[in-house]
């Protein structure tokens, strides 16, 4: 187990390296550079000034030098300056990560809190009327794109009923910035992400529970007279949850994708919104920092899911 974790962590290093190379190359391939975006074309001797600036920034050096230089700065936490917000990138990213974590965790908690119990209820009475109807309903819900849900959410709960704010991550006034305020703003976007995802969890939970309840050891447990509740908690539930953990790991990448879109729709000031704004404003330093950080986030998330899986499933030996 220890060796497994160490190997997985070491395995991440080349991946992280590749990600930084990749991001650097994409940015390098971008037409124009940061100076084109910010310089006033009316300046006299613009070409000379530009060359001077480019020379100072090292843009006339070979590509590998620029990469190493950038990587060195990046690793030491020097992520440059946002041209659009006129503050260091680090200052923008702190609150953005916090907001995205609030939204992401809330969405995932809601997904599991809705999806897993529902799947269990289905699996307790399989192939019945409720099971059949709810399966059809879940399948239809699953086919609704989550951003369509988001739009309906905004329409009903924010515009019509005015229960929740339609956008933003914090409000104004005395309560602004409190935990309650954050959750209040995150709830609607989190719900729109969670509803569709929870149908996936319901399907997996139902299937997994049914698989397990057909196993011989469960039949044995019933045969020896254990009551149904004990059979379920002691045998079916524990073993049935293992594939759910795998599902959680597989979902991590798409959860991040969903977060970016949701933040865009709700104008929620997290990492996603930061990326979208940065791309629209050609704010290169912000794009590079956020892209690398999000990719690292996915990598670490997958690692945690794998380790969690190893912990939950005692059958798998990692040496």
């Amino acid at each position: 187990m220890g060796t497994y974790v160490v190997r997985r962590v070491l395995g991440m290093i080349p991946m992280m390296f590749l990600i930084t190379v990749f991001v650097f190359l994409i940015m390098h391939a971008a037409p124009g550079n940061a100076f084109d975006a910010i310089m006033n074309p009316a300046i006299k001797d613009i070409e000379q000034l530009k060359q001077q600036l480019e020379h100072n920034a090292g843009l006339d050096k070979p590509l590998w030098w620029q990469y190493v230089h950038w990587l060195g700065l990046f690793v030491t936490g020097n992520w440059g300056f946002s041209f659009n917000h006129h503050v260091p990138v680090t200052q923008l990213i702190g609150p953005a990560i916090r907001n995205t974590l609030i939204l992401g965790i809330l969405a995932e908690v809601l997904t599991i809190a809705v999806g897993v119990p529902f799947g269990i209820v289905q699996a307790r009475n399989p192939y019945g009327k409720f099971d059949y109807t709810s399966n059809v309903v879940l399948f239809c819900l699953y086919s609704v794109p989550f951003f369509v849900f988001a739009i309906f959410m905004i329409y009903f709960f924010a515009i019509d009923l005015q229960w929740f704010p339609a956008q933003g991550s914090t409000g104004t006034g005395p309560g602004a910035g409190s935990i309650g305020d954050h959750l209040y703003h995150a709830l609607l976007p989190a719900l729109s992400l969670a509803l569709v995802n929870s149908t996936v969890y319901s399907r997996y939970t139902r299937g997994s529970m049914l698989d397990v309840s057909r196993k011989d050891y469960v039949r044995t447990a019933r045969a020896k007279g254990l009551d149904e509740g004990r059979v379920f908690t002691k045998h079916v539930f524990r073993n049935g949850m293992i594939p759910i953990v795998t599902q959680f790991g597989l979902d991590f990448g798409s959860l991040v994708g969903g977060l970016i879109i949701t933040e865009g729709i709700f104008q929620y000031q997290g990492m996603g919104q930061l990326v979208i704004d940065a791309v629209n404003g050609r704010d290169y330093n912000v794009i590079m920092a956020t892209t690398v950080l999000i990719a690292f986030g996915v990598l670490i998330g997958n690692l945690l899911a794998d380790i969690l899986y190893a912990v939950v499933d005692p059958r798998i030996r990692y040496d």
Partner: protein
Amino acid sequence: MSANTATATETQAQPRGRVSKSPTRLAFERFMYNKAAVVSVIVLLLIIFISIGAPLFTHLDPTHQYLMETDAPPGGVHVLGTDKNGFDLFSRDLYGGRNDLLIGFVDTIIVMAIGILLGGLAGYYGGWVDSLIMRFCDFMLNFPFLLLIIVLTSIFNSSGVWLLIVVIAIVFWPPTTRLVRGLFLNLRESEFVLAAKMAGAGPWRIMFRHMLPNIMGTIVVNATFTMANLIASEAALAVIGFGVQPPNPSWGNVLYDALDYFTLKGEPWVWLPPAALLTITILCINFIGDGLRDAFDPSFEK
């Protein structure tokens, strides 16, 4: 006359009794019994028809801005009104389907082609070929795909659909490749593959004549679900402004232009139709995939 006699003798040579049906034929018959799937095929064909045949239903140009008639309510020349930029909504909803479906179909084909080729090679040969392809897959899977699309499409600023198609394909091939690799790996040691090797068949013949037909069912099912996913993903991108770029219409970018308080509250005809079309299209494709999965289920055969 002579042709007639020839057919007559041939018919006689055929075995009497029941007709032999190939496994594919049996799967098709099972699919036709699935009502939801068959209805979905019909509805999807209808949506394809109104998208491709859009000029039959409207003579308005979806890319033209009627600047004097912005935010017009439904009725008159503009059947579904116009949006805040003066685009005619009815024609955009119809023509928009062309781009969504085009991206869905073409990208599914590209993704499947890459997946079958790379996944097949990895699964069949194993060893370093497998390691190389799978490490590359891992890398692509770990890279947040939406981010990549956002960055690439905005850097190579272009309103064409084809760049988007290429970028989406680059991002979506890894899961399919993994799946196909797993399927090939399962079959690699199977006895009929060994038998083909013993017969002297080369790697390509074994991969495409023996292994591929046996996993085609799973691949086709995966392809339908992938298509639904691709269409949804393009629309999701468009909803935050990075999908098909206006004035080129797509269901997603019609939604993008509806995302303001005023439009959402007072003009449901702007956002309801594209949202409904998208949802129905994805629902139909998923139902078809579900029907195919049941049809190909090999547990029936044993």
